[in-house]
C-alpha cells in the first residue's frame, strides 16, 4: 500500500475512533437497549466474517490462512478447526458443523451478505433407518444472497466436517428422494429457479447426498404426492433447500468437484456422473446429455449462446458487414410512461462508442446531455435503461465529450446538437430526431458480460492511432496548438487522408453504411449536378425526396430551402462521393454506376442485417460503404456500425427512506394513536369513559432491575437508575431463565422457549410528558410525533421516546433499526473536480488531496483529482437530509445524553469530510464513507469500489447512506424484526476500510486506461472475444501498491451532473401524461417504431391491467366501509355482519375500465395490429356486458322523444 493510501485510511479510522469514543460515552449514559455501540468495526474481511457470525477466533484464523490459500480452501481448513475445536466453542457435533458451514458461507460472501446468519437456520443430527446418525442442514430463503458457489460449498463443508467429527452419511429414503424431485419442480413453478434440474437429476443428487438438506417452508403451495414425511417437517416447498440443491449442487457441480478431489476424508464420486449427465437409469443417456447441455443456462451461458448465435449470423460468404444480431429482449414488459429510445440495432439509434468516462463503468452507459434533453428529459443522470447489449441494464451518466444527437427541425434544417443549452432552445422546434448521438460503453462492460466486442464506431481516438500507424506523427498533431486534430477543418482532414493514406477523419465520415447503394449513386448524381454558392462555402443541391432522405440518413447537416438543399463544408462529402471540382469550378462525377464492382453494388443485400424497414424495390445492396471505398480517393471507415437499442427502466432515485407510514420512534402505542400513530393523541385516548386516558395495553418486553428488583419495560430502572435486564420466564413453569452464551433462552425443564414479552398497561401520556421533559422540548417543537402500532422484535424492547421527539423536531424519520436513512441511485466516479462538487480547492486539500490526475499541484477548482475509494458525493437532497440528521444528533447528544454536540454544522459545505455509512439492501455490513462534495444530480456518486464493497453495481441499483453518529448512537439489534430476513438491511458490522480484493469482483472488470489500443478497435470489427484484446482492467492491480489508484479514463465530461436533474418520468403527473409523452417521443425518434411501442404498452400494460381487473371484479372480496371487515363473498345480510355497517365492493367498474378508452384510442391512433384491436374490442364488449343493462341501452333518438 502506498503511503498516501495508508495516510488516507488512518485518517478515516482515527476520525471513526473519535466518533466511536463519543458514542460509547453517550451509550453508557443513555437508556438504549445496550450500553455500548452495537455496530462492531471490521478492518478487513476476516473481521467482518467474525463479527457477522459472532464466533471468536475466526478472524485470526482467516487472516492466517488467507495468504496461503484460496478462500474456498480456507473454508475447508476452517472446517477442520471447527471439528477439532480449535475455533469456536461448540460442545456438540451438530454445533461444530453449524459453525463450519456458517463460516464457509460468510467467508465466500466476504462477510457482507446476510446469508450465513439468515440463510442457514440450524444444523441437527437425525437417525438413519439403521440407527446411525446423520447431519441435517436447515436452509432458509436468504441463502439466495450467497450465490450458487457458496451454497454448493456449504454442503461440501458440512459433509467434510461431518466426516471429521465422525458422523455417518445420510441415507435418503425413497419417498424422500421422490419428495425432493416433486418439491423442486413445485418451487420452480411457483418461484422460479435459474437452473431447473430435471427429475432424474434431482433424484440422483438426493440419492447420493451424504448430508440431508432441509429447510423452512417458503411458499403456500404444497406438494401433492410425498406429504407428511417423518423426517420432513413441512408439505410446502422449502425454498432454501431448493436453491442449494438446484442452483448450488446441480449447477455448480464442476466447481465442487475441484475441491472434493483434494480431500481425502470425503469422496463424492457421483459428481462426475452428475457432470456427465449419467444419472438416467438406462437407455436414454444421450437424451440426458442433451437436455443437460441445453438447460445449462445461467446468465453467462446464455450470453455465450447468444454470442455463438451472433457469430453464426454473420454471413458466411461475406455479402454484408459483420454485425451482432439484434436482440429484442430488452423491450419485454414495456411499461406505459417509460419510453423506448431505440429499437434493437435500429438506424438512428444510439451509436456505440467505446471508452470510459470518469463517471462511467460498472454497468453504466454514457449519454450526451443534449440527447437527455431532446428525449424530452426522460433521461437524467442515474435513470436506469434496459439495453440491448452488452448487459441487461445501465445507469445513465452524462458525458459531453461524445457526439450529440442530430435533429431535423420544423423548417427542414438538419443540425447536430452538441450543446445541452442549444438542445433546450431548439427542443420545441424538433420535428424528428434523426440520430440520438453516441452511447459510451467501456471495454470492461463487455468483459463482465462476456459479450463479444461489437464493431466499433470510427472515432477520433481510433483515427489518431490510424494516423500514427500510417506514419504521421500523431503526438505532434496533438501537441501543435495551431491544429485541432479532434475537429480539424476539411482541408486538413483531406490533406491528412491524402498525405498519409490514412482513413478519412471521423468528423467527415458519414453514416454511409446506412445508405442503400442506389441512393448513394443518386446522391453522387445530385452532388455532381449541384452548384456552389457563397464563395465556394455552400453546396446547393436540387431538392428531392431521395436526396433529402439520403442526407438525413447519413447525417449531413444541411438547410432546406425552397426547392433546394444547402450543405456547408461540403468538400469531404463530395470527395467521398467521388465528385471532384475542376479548375473551372465545375463539379464532375468521376465514376458511373457500372464502375462499381458486383460486391460493392450488392453489399449488405442480405435481408437479415438491417431491421428491414426500408424495403427497396431495386436490386442494390443496403449498405454503401463498399461503394464509397471504391469511388473515394481515400479509405472511409464505418462511422457507426453498431447501434444499441434501449428503453427506460426505473427512474433515478434520491429520497429519504421512510417506513410506511413514516415513524419517528420505535415506541409502541397500539391502536390508540389512530391510523397516524400519533403519540400525543394516544396519550389522550380512552376506550370508554371509565378508562384512564392514555393508559393502553401493549405487548412489550419485561425488564427487571438487578439492584432494586423493580419491574419495568425500560432499559434503565425508573427508581434507581441502574441498567435493567430482560426478565425471561418460561411460559409453562414461570421460572426465570438466563440466556445461554449463544443468546438462546430455553427452559431446560419444559423444553420450551422462554420469553420476556408480556401484555402490559402503559401510561402513554406519562411516558410522553416525561420524555418531553427529559429533552426539554415543548409540544410545539414539532407537528406530530408518530410511534408504531407494535414491536416486531423478539424481546419487544421499545426505543426511548426522547429520540423520537428530537427526530420529529428535525423532521427526520426512523427506519426499522433505529437509523435515519437516505436512498440514492448508485453511480460511479473515479475523478472529480472541486468546481462540480460545489466545494473549493482548499476543502479538497483539507481532505488530503494534493495533486491532480497528472501529478500537478492542486491549485484551481477545475483540476481533476482522482477520487479516493471511500469518498462519496451526496445529492443535494441527501446533503439537506444529512444536515437535518446532524442537527438531530447534536440535540440528542446535548439534550438526551448530556454531552457536547458533535457536528455543529451550519452550512452544507461543513458536511464535507464527515463520515457516513453506505449500506445496501440484502446485506448486513455497512461501509464507512466520507463526504467529499455535492451534486445536483439525484444520485449518489462514489468510487466503483465503494459500491462494490456494498455488493452493488451501478445498473440502476440504489442503496442508502446514514450519518455515522446516527448509526453508532441509534442502531440496535434489539429493534430488528424477529422474522426471517429481519437482520438483512441492518448494519450488523461496518467495514472501516475497503480492501479491493475483498469486494464484489465485478468491480475488477473496470478498465483503467486512458486509451484503448488500435488493435482493440480492429478486433471489434471481427467481433472478437473481449478476453482476446489487451486493455488493462482493475483486476491487474489487485494486491499491488497501485490497487487504490490509477483509474484513468478515456473520456472526460465537463460536469458529472448535466442534462435534466430529474427524469420527466418523475416530473410528469399522471400515468396518462407519462404515456402520452412516451408515445409522442416515440414518434419523434427515427430509431423507434411507434406502432410497436403502442402495441407493447397495450400488450404488456393495458391489457394485463384490464384483464386482471375484470377477472378480479368477477371474483372479488368485499369490505365493510365502517369497520374494515373483509368478506370473501357478499354477505347475504347485505350489511356488515360484524358492525352492521355498509359493505361495498373492493373492485369497482371505475378501476376495471379506467384504461379501456385510452387503450382503444392508442390502438387506433398508432395503427396497432388487428389482433390487438380485436382483443380490445372483445374486452370492451365484455365490460359493456358486465356493466351495462341490456334493457337500458340508449338505442336511438326515439328513446328521448
Amino acid at each position: 500500500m502506498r503511503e498516501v493510501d495508508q495516510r488516507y485510511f488512518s485518517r478515516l479510522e482515527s476520525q471513526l475512533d473519535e466518533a466511536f469514543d463519543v458514542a460509547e460515552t453517550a451509550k453508557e449514559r443513555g437508556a438504549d437497549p445496550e450500553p455500548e455501540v452495537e455496530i462492531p468495526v471490521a478492518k478487513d474481511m476476516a473481521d467482518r466474517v467474525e463479527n457477522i457470525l459472532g464466533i471468536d477466533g475466526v478472524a485470526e484464523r482467516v487472516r492466517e490462512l488467507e495468504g496461503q490459500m484460496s478462500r474456498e480452501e480456507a473454508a475447508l481448513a476452517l472446517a477442520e478447526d471447527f471439528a477439532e475445536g480449535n475455533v469456536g466453542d461448540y460442545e456438540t457435533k451438530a454445533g461444530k458443523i453449524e459453525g463450519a458451514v456458517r463460516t464457509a458461507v460468510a467467508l465466500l460472501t466476504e462477510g457482507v451478505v446476510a446469508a450465513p446468519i439468515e440463510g442457514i437456520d440450524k444444523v441437527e443430527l437425525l437417525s438413519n433407518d439403521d440407527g446411525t446418525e446423520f447431519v441435517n442442514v436447515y436452509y432458509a430463503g436468504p441463502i439466495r444472497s450467497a450465490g450458487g458457489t457458496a451454497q454448493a460449498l456449504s454442503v461440501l463443508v458440512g459433509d467434510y466436517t461431518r466426516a471429521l467429527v465422525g458422523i455417518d452419511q445420510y441415507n435418503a429414503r425413497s419417498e424422500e428422494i421422490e419428495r425432493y424431485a416433486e418439491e423442486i419442480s413445485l418451487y420452480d413453478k411457483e418461484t422460479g429457479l435459474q437452473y431447473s434440474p430435471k427429475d432424474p437429476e434431482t433424484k440422483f443428487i438426493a440419492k447420493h447426498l451424504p448430508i440431508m438438506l432441509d429447510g423452512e417452508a417458503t411458499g403456500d403451495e404444497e406438494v401433492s404426492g410425498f406429504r407428511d414425511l417423518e423426517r420432513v417437517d413441512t408439505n410446502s416447498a422449502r425454498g432454501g433447500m431448493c436453491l442449494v440443491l438446484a442452483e448450488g449442487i446441480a449447477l455448480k457441480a464442476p466447481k465442487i468437484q475441484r475441491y472434493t478431489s483434494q480431500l481425502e476424508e470425503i469422496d463424492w464420486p457421483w459428481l462426475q456422473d452428475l457432470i456427465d449427465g449419467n444419472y438416467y437409469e438406462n437407455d436414454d443417456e444421450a437424451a440426458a446429455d442433451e437436455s443437460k447441455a441445453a438447460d445449462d443456462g445461467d446468465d453467462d451461458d446464455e450470453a455465450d449462446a447468444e454470442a455463438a448465435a451472433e457469430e453464426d449470423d454473420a454471413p458466411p460468404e461475406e455479402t454484408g458487414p459483420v454485425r451482432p444480431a439484434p436482440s429484442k429482449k430488452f423491450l419485454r414488459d414495456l411499461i406505459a410512461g417509460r419510453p423506448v429510445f431505440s429499437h434493437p440495432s435500429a438506424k438512428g439509434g444510439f451509436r456505440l462508442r467505446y471508452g470510459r468516462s470518469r463517471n462511467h463503468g460498472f454497468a453504466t452507459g454514457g449519454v450526451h446531455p443534449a440527447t437527455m434533453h431532446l428525449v424530452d428529459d426522460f433521461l437524467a443522470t442515474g435513470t436506469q435503461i434496459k439495453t440491448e447489449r452488452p448487459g441487461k441494464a445501465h445507469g445513465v451518466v452524462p458525458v459531453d465529450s461524445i457526439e450529440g444527437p442530430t435533429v431535423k427541425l420544423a423548417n427542414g434544417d438538419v443540425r447536430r446538437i452538441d450543446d445541452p443549452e442549444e438542445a433546450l432552445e431548439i427542443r420545441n422546434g424538433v420535428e424528428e430526431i434523426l440520430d440520438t448521438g453516441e452511447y459510451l460503453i467501456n471495454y470492461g462492460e463487455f468483459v463482465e458480460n462476456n459479450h463479444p466486442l461489437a464493431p466499433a464506431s470510427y472515432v477520433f481516438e481510433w483515427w489518431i492511432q490510424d494516423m500514427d500507424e500510417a506514419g504521421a506523427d500523431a503526438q505532434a498533431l496533438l501537441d501543435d496548438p495551431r491544429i485541432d486534430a479532434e475537429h480539424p477543418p476539411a482541408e486538413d482532414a483531406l490533406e491528412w487522408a491524402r498525405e498519409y493514406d490514412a482513413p478519412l477523419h471521423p468528423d467527415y465520415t458519414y453514416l454511409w453504411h446506412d445508405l442503400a447503394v442506389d441512393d448513394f449513386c443518386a446522391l453522387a448524381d445530385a452532388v455532381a449536378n449541384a452548384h456552389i454558392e457563397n464563395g465556394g462555402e455552400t453546396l446547393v443541391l436540387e431538392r428531392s425526396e431521395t436526396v433529402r432522405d439520403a442526407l438525413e440518413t447519413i447525417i449531413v447537416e444541411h438547410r432546406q430551402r425552397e426547392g433546394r438543399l444547402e450543405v456547408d463544408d461540403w468538400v469531404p462529402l463530395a470527395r467521398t462521393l467521388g465528385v471532384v471540382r475542376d479548375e473551372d469550378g465545375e463539379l464532375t462525377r468521376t465514376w458511373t454506376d457500372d464502375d462499381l464492382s458486383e460486391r460493392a453494388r450488392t453489399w449488405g443485400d442480405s435481408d437479415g442485417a438491417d431491421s428491414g424497414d426500408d424495403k427497396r424495390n431495386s436490386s442494390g445492396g443496403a449498405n454503401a460503404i463498399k461503394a464509397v471505398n471504391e469511388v473515394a480517393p481515400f479509405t472511409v471507415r464505418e462511422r457507426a456500425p453498431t447501434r444499441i437499442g434501449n428503453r427506460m427502466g426505473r427512474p433515478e432515485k434520491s429520497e429519504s427512506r421512510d417506513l410506511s407510514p413514516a415513524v419517528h420512534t420505535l415506541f409502541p402505542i397500539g391502536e390508540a394513536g389512530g391510523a397516524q400513530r400519533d403519540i400525543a393523541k394516544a396519550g389522550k385516548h380512552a376506550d370508554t369513559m371509565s378508562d384512564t386516558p392514555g393508559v393502553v395495553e401493549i405487548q412489550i418486553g419485561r425488564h427487571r432491575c438487578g439492584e432494586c428488583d423493580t419491574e419495568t419495560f425500560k432499559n434503565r430502572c425508573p427508581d434507581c437508575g441502574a441498567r435493567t435486564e430482560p426478565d425471561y420466564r418460561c411460559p409453562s413453569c414461570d421460572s426465570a431463565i438466563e440466556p445461554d452464551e449463544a443468546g438462546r433462552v430455553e427452559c431446560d425443564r419444559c423444553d420450551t422457549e422462554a420469553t420476556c414479552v408480556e401484555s402490559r398497561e402503559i401510561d402513554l401520556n406519562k411516558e410522553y410528558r416525561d420524555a418531553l421533559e427529559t429533552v426539554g422540548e415543548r409540544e410545539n417543537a414539532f407537528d406530530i410525533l408518530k410511534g408504531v402500532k407494535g414491536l416486531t422484535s423478539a424481546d419487544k424492547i421499545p426505543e426511548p421516546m426522547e429520540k423520537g421527539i428530537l427526530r420529529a423536531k428535525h423532521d427526520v424519520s426512523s427506519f426499522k433499526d433505529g437509523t435515519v436513512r437516505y436512498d440514492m441511485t448508485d453511480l460511479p466516479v473515479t475523478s472529480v473536480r472541486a468546481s462540480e462538487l460545489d466545494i473549493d480547492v482548499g476543502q479538497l486539500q483539507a481532505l488530503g488531496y494534493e495533486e491532480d490526475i497528472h501529478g500537478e499541484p492542486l491549485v484551481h477548482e477545475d483540476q481533476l483529482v482522482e477520487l479516493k475509494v471511500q469518498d462519496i458525493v451526496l445529492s443535494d437532497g441527501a446533503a439537506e437530509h444529512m444536515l437535518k440528521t446532524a442537527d438531530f444528533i447534536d440535540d440528542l447528544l446535548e439534550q438526551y445524553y448530556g454531552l457536547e454536540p458533535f457536528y455543529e454544522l451550519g452550512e452544507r459545505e461543513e458536511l464535507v469530510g464527515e463520515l457516513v455509512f453506505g449500506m445496501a439492501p440484502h446485506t448486513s455490513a455497512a461501509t464507512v464513507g466520507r463526504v467529499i462534495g455535492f451534486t445536483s444530480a439525484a444520485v449518489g456518486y462514489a468510487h466503483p469500489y465503494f459500491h462494490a464493497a456494498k455488493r452493488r453495481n451501478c445498473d440502476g441499483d440504489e442503496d442508502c447512506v446514514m450519518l455515522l453518529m446516527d448509526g453508532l448512537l441509534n442502531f440496535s439489534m434489539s429493534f430488528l424484526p424477529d422474522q426471517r430476513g429481519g437482520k438483512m438491511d441492518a448494519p450488523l458490522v461496518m467495514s472501516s476500510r475497503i480492501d479491493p480484493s475483498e469486494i464484489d469482483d465485478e468491480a475488477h472488470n473496470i478498465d483503467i486506461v486512458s486509451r484503448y489500443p488500435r488493435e482493440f478497435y480492429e478486433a471489434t470489427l471481427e467481433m472478437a472475444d473481449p478476453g482476446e484484446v489487451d486493455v488493462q482492467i482493475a483486476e491487474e492491480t489487485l494486491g499491488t501498491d497501485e490497487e487504490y489508484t490509477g483509474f484513468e479514463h478515456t473520456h472526460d465530461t465537463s460536469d458529472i451532473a448535466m442534462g435534466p436533474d430529474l427524469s420527466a418520468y418523475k416530473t410528469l403527473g399522471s400515468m396518462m401524461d407519462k404515456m402520452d409523452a412516451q408515445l409522442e417521443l416515440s414518434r419523434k425518434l427515427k430509431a423507434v417504431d411507434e406502432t410497436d411501442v403502442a402495441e407493447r404498452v397495450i400488450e404488456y400494460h393495458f391489457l394485463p391491467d384490464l384483464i386482471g381487473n375484470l377477472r378480479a371484479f368477477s371474483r372479488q372480496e368485499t369490505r365493510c366501509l365502517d369497520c374494515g371487515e373483509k368478506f370473501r363473498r357478499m354477505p347475504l345480510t347485505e350489511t356488515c355482519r360484524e358492525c352492521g355497517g355498509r359493505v361495498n365492493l373492493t373492485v369497482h367498474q371505475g378501476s376495471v375500465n379506467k384504461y379501456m378508452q385510452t387503450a382503444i384510442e392508442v390502438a387506433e391512433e398508432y395503427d396497432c395490429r388487428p389482433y390487438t384491436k380485436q382483443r380490445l374490442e372483445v374486452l370492451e364488449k365484455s365490460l359493456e356486458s358486465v356493466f351495462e343493462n341490456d334493457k337500458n341501452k340508449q338505442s336511438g333518438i326515439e328513446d328521448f322523444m
Partner: protein
Amino acid sequence: MPLEGPARIVSELTTRGYNAEREAVTLIAAAERPQPTLEQVVEQLPERTLVVRTEHVRAVLEESTPASSESSPVSSESPPSNPSRDGDDSTDRPQNNPSVSTGDPSQPSPTPRTDPPVETEGSVDHIERSSDISRRSLEIANDMTGESTGTGEYKDFVAVFRDRLERLGSKLRGRFNHRPASAIQSMPGGSEAAMVGLVNDIRSTASGHWLIELEDATGTFPWLVMKDREYADLVEELLCDEVLAMEGTLADDSGIAFVDSMSFPDVPRTYEPSTADRHVQAALISDVHVGSQEFMADAWNRFADWLHTEEAQHVEYLLLAGDMVEGVGVYPDQDEELDIVDIYDQYEAFNECLKRVPGDLDIVMIPGNHDAVRLAEPQPGFDERLRNIMSAHDPRIVSNPSTVTLEGVSVLMYHGVSLDEVIAELPEEKANYDEPHKAMYHLLKKRHVAPQFGGHTRLAPEKEDYLIIEDVPDIFHTGHVHKLGFGKYHNVLAINSGCWQAQTDFQKSVNIDPDAGYAPIVDLDTLDVTVQKFS
C-alpha cells in the same frame, strides 16, 4: 333409382298423416310397383300408427312377393354424402336444402308441424336424411341473452346470492323444521335445530373435526361435523357458496351446533327422465377450437360426412357446448399459436365447418371461455355480428348455461369452466379429469353449475342466479376439459363431450391428453349413448 321416388313416397305418406322411417321409404321405392305397395302398406297399418316402419313394409312385401325382400339391401347402397368431396355439399343444393327453422327464427318454440312441409320434397336427396322434421320440437329455457340487466353494483351481487338461497333453499325447506341463523343463536342449548344456508366457510379444527359456517339472510351459524361421523366424508365434497341444509344439536352455550345430518338440494333418486317418443338422436359436442393450429379439421370433416350417412340418419339435433373458436387473447402470446389470427375470420371458418353438416340438423350453441363474449358467467349468447357470421343452418344461439328441450328431453347445456374448480377442490377419487362426468354429478347434486364464488369461475351479477339448476334436466351436457366421459346420476345422463383440438403444447406440459375427435350420440328415446370416433 330415381331420386324423386322416395320423395314422392314421403310426400304421399305425409299427406295421409304418416311419418316414415327412412328404410321403410326405401323399401317401398324399391318395390316393383311402389304405388300399390304404398297403398297396401297404408291399408294394413295398425290403428293410431303414426310412423311407417320398416317392418310394416316388409310385412306387405313378403305377403305379396316374398322373393322381392332381397331387394331391400339395395337401399343401403344409396350413396351417402361423398366423403372424398372437398367442396361443401350443402351449398351445392341450396334450393333443395330444407331447414326447419327458416320460417321465423324469432319464434322461440316451433310447435310440431302437422301440415306437410313443402320442403320435405327436397330433403330426400341422395343422402336421404330423415323425413319427419315435422315431429321435431326444440324449446329453450333459461336463456339470458339480451337479459343482462346487472350493472356490476354491490347490490346486484347480493341479489344473486339471495336468489340462490331462496330458490335452492326452497328445495330443502320442506324437508326440515329449519330456523334462520339468528333464531338458532337464541335457542336454548341442547335443542335440535336445522338450518338452510350457503356454505360460507369450511375449516378443519385442531382436533381434525370440521367447522362449517352456514349463512342465510340473517347471519351465519357454525356447524361442527365430528370427524368420526358418517357425514365427515361429505365435507370434502363441499364447495363454498353451495346451498345445503344441516340438522343437529346445539351445544350447551348455543354457540355452535353438532351436525347430525346434511342434505343437498340434489336430484331425487327416483327421478324419471323424459324420453322422446320416437327413435331420434342428438350429437352432443363442444370445444371445436377453430382457428387453433391444433384444430382437427380432418376429424371434423369426417364427422360432418358421417352425419350424412345412413348410420347417422336419426341424428337430428346437434348441440355445441361452447368454444366454437380458439379466440384471441385467451392466454399470453396466443397469436403465435393461432392458425387464424383474426377473431372474425375464426368464426367465418367455424361457419364453414358448420356448413358441412347436414342442413336439416337443428343446431343449438352456447358460448365458452374461448369465445368472444364476456368470460363472466352467465355468458350471454353471441352478439349480432357473430350471429350473422355463424348463419349456416340457422343455429339457435343461447346463453351459457341454457336448457334446451328436444322432443320432451331437457338438456342442460353448460360450457363447464367450473369443472376445473370441482376437480381441484374435491378429492381425486370423487372428481378427476379422466372421469369428468363424476365432477358433473356433484354439480347436479348441488343443483348449481358453478357454486363457488371467488375462485376459478367468474361471476357477473344479474337479477337472478342463472347458474342454478332449477329443474332437473334429463341430460346435463358440458365440455371445457377436453375429456370425454358420461354416466348417469340418479338417472340423469351427464355427458362431457371431448374436443376437436389435438393436444396443445400447454396440455403436453401439464400432461393432459385430450379426447379429441369424438362425438357422443344420444338416443333421445332411451338416453343411451354411443360414441363415434373420427380421429
